[in-house]
């Protein structure tokens, strides 16, 4: 039993943190926030060069052959730094979808490209509000041509290719579509966190290649979402840490009534509660990370648990960081809202808390029954 990351993993994390703290300052994040660009292309390029997208891809498929634990510690740092790059879309979603659903030949072809950052992937699944329901898909494939509309596609406006969920002869499956090909149009959506931008994708007979090894698509999607839930939980706890640290620094330095604001019990206990929420989320994320890396049967429950507590913790930490700042926390100039926006965005990708709570309980009861 060992409930901690290894020294090697911690070293990777430290390297990632050092890199991002110098290359991905909040001033840099604001360039994307304020609409100068849809994502931080140079930063993404550096991240590709560092090999992060290749972390959990096997060596014989062009990856580094590390594992999910290494990806988790990188995720925590990307979350802490609010990195405005398509890492979630391309790595946790598109790459993992391909690992789960593509056959060997497809994987041998696509994974080295993803590992090398030759193209950016995204996942196009959602068509309307609420939890994704396979039985209600309106996107269809006929003779290799895909038609339909997808919404809330993370980084959909800048991705090169999308893994699209669609039905063919009433059978749901995943399809890779080149987004620059004919039959594809896309529209950027105004997103609550412009550093994680969403898009609407319209397909009208776009060429689509079926991921050839999708058998039980519901199970595949569940696994895909569970994996992503764990990785997002690490992004979220990174954000919690950063918000808490920001609030601490400000209130330790600011005075009211002749004393440090951070010396008031109401503020101290607020931070204590933020810390508690973060630590519970962190511990649950660790459990999720282990289940993910060990491909353990507890992954579904561990992933739902990690996600539910990470959503709650980041909401709490990001909103109370604003509160602890007082009026300045409400300004555009202060960085508080960057975390608050990110907390919202991360909580809504993959579906919100209500649906994950229901998943958690289903899985808890299933384990109990087993």
């Amino acid at each position, binding site marked *: 039993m060992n409930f901690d990351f290894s020294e090697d993993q911690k070293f990777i994390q430290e390297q990632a943190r050092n890199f991002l703290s110098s290359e991905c300052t909040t001033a840099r994040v604001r360039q994307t926030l304020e609409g100068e660009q849809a994502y931080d292309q140079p930063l993404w390029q550096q991240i590709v060069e560092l090999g992060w997208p290749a972390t959990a891809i096997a060596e014989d498929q062009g990856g580094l052959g590390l594992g999910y634990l290494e990806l988790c510690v990188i995720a925590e740092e990307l979350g802490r730094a609010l990195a405005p790059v398509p890492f979630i879309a391309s790595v946790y979603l598109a790459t993992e979808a391909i690992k789960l659903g593509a056959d060997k030949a497809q994987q041998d072809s696509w994974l080295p490209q993803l590992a090398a950052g030759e193209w950016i992937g995204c996942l196009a699944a959602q068509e309307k509000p609420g939890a994704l329901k396979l039985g209600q898909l309106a996107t269809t494939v006929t003779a290799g041509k895909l038609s339909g509309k997808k919404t*809330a596609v993370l980084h959909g406006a800048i991705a090169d290719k999308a893994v699209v969920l669609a039905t063919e002869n009433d059978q749901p499956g995943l399809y890779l579509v080149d987004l620059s090909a004919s039959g594809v149009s896309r529209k950027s959506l105004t997103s609550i966190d412009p550093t994680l931008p969403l898009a609407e994708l319209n397909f009208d007979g776009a060429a689509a290649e079926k991921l050839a090894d999708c058998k039980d698509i519901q199970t595949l999607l569940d696994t895909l979402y569970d994996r992503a839930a764990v990785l997002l939980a690490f992004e979220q706890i990174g954000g919690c840490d950063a918000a808490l640290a920001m609030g601490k620094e400000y209130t330790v330095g600011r005075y009211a009534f002749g004393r440090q604001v951070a010396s008031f019990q109401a503020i101290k206990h607020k931070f204590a509660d933020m810390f508690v929420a973060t630590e519970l989320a962190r511990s649950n994320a660790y459990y999720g990370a282990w289940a993910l890396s060990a491909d353990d049967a507890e992954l579904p429950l561990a992933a739902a648990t990690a996600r539910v507590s990470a959503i709650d913790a980041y909401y709490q930490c990001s909103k109370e960081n604003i509160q602890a700042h007082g*009026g300045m926390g*409400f300004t555009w100039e202060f960085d508080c*809202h960057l975390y608050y926006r990110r907390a919202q965005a991360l909580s809504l990708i993959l579906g919100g808390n209500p649906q994950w709570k229901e998943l958690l309980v289903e899985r808890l009861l299933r384990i109990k029954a087993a």
Partner: protein
Amino acid sequence: MDFKDTPEQAEFRKEVQAWLKTNATAKTKDGGRTSQEEAYERAKAWYQKVYDAGYACPTWPKEYGGAGLTQIHKVIWSQEVAKYDEPDGYFVIGQGNCGPALMHFASEEQKTTLLPRMASAEDVWCQLFSEPSAGSDVAGLRTKAELKGDKWIVNGQKIWTSGAQHSDYGVILCRTDTEVSKYRGMTMFFIDMKQPGVDVQPIKQMDGGSHFNEVFFNNAEIPDSQRLGEVGGGWGAALLVLMNERLAISGVQPDGFPEFFELVQTLELDGEPVVNNPVVRDRLAIWYTQHAGIKASTNRMLTAVAKGGMPGAEAALGKLVGAVMNQDIANYALQLMADTGAICDDALAPQKAHFQKSVLFAPGIRLAGGTDEVMRNIIAEQVLGLPQEPRADKGMAFKDIPSGNQH
């Protein structure tokens, strides 16, 4: 106890209803947002119309431009006008905060001249208390006023000033003595906002909007005749203004419930409205009890005021509860929408993206007019009479109080 109108009140309500029917703009489903400048012009026009009809500032004496009626009449007015699409609360800070300050401290001539112009919104007023280094600790303010002859020379900076860009006058709290303890060294004035030494700069909020300003004073001038109260008596005067503010904003502040109630009945997931979901109903019940409780508490307070009482610090509870639930409701609404909740486009998100906007504006409501923490302090100390914290700055001359990273 009678929650219905007396015959006289019913009569007044009918009269108001009739007037509004002819004069006020009906609500439409898609109101269509206007620019800030258009909203301002609309508000000016509306206030003038209300003033001309004699309904402006219902509780003020007639000689100062009011209607000479009671708080209950004001409630009736507010209830009725709320059914229309009119910016009836636009100038609440001037009329609700600055008005009572003038009423209490200004000369008779100033009152007869200025109050009717405030009532008709011909003159716009703002309140200048908060400063970058004086938020929850308002009395920590540093904007300095120095007497030169019969004029006070003002230098410093105010912040979070609503409507400063449109204001003709402002009620300002300044430090006039740094050698005495902080509560004793302040004086209140009203200042001409259109003079050269006053510079108004909008603050960009986290939601991208700009409802507030910073105001810089650079040798701005105030005649001593515009002093409100005694030199050094500014804190007492400010408390009076803040007490009236509570009365003015009570019941006006959004708590998010009506919009949420609409959402849960209209948003459909899996083919049925989300209000059919028991978990949503559970939240709805909790938030409704808070919403109803705030409303009934406000009415109880207005009853007390109508009977001649003062608006108590109890009003802080509506602010506290409403602001927190407003934020949690917005967050929960987005969670219900799941992935698409992050889409902020007016045309795509329910209720013209009300909840997405609300998520981003809600933190401000928890801060403006006193943070959650200040509200709890007010309740604990002023309502429950609990002892103050040991005061680190007690008895110190203002200039000696530690100030940390504020400059």
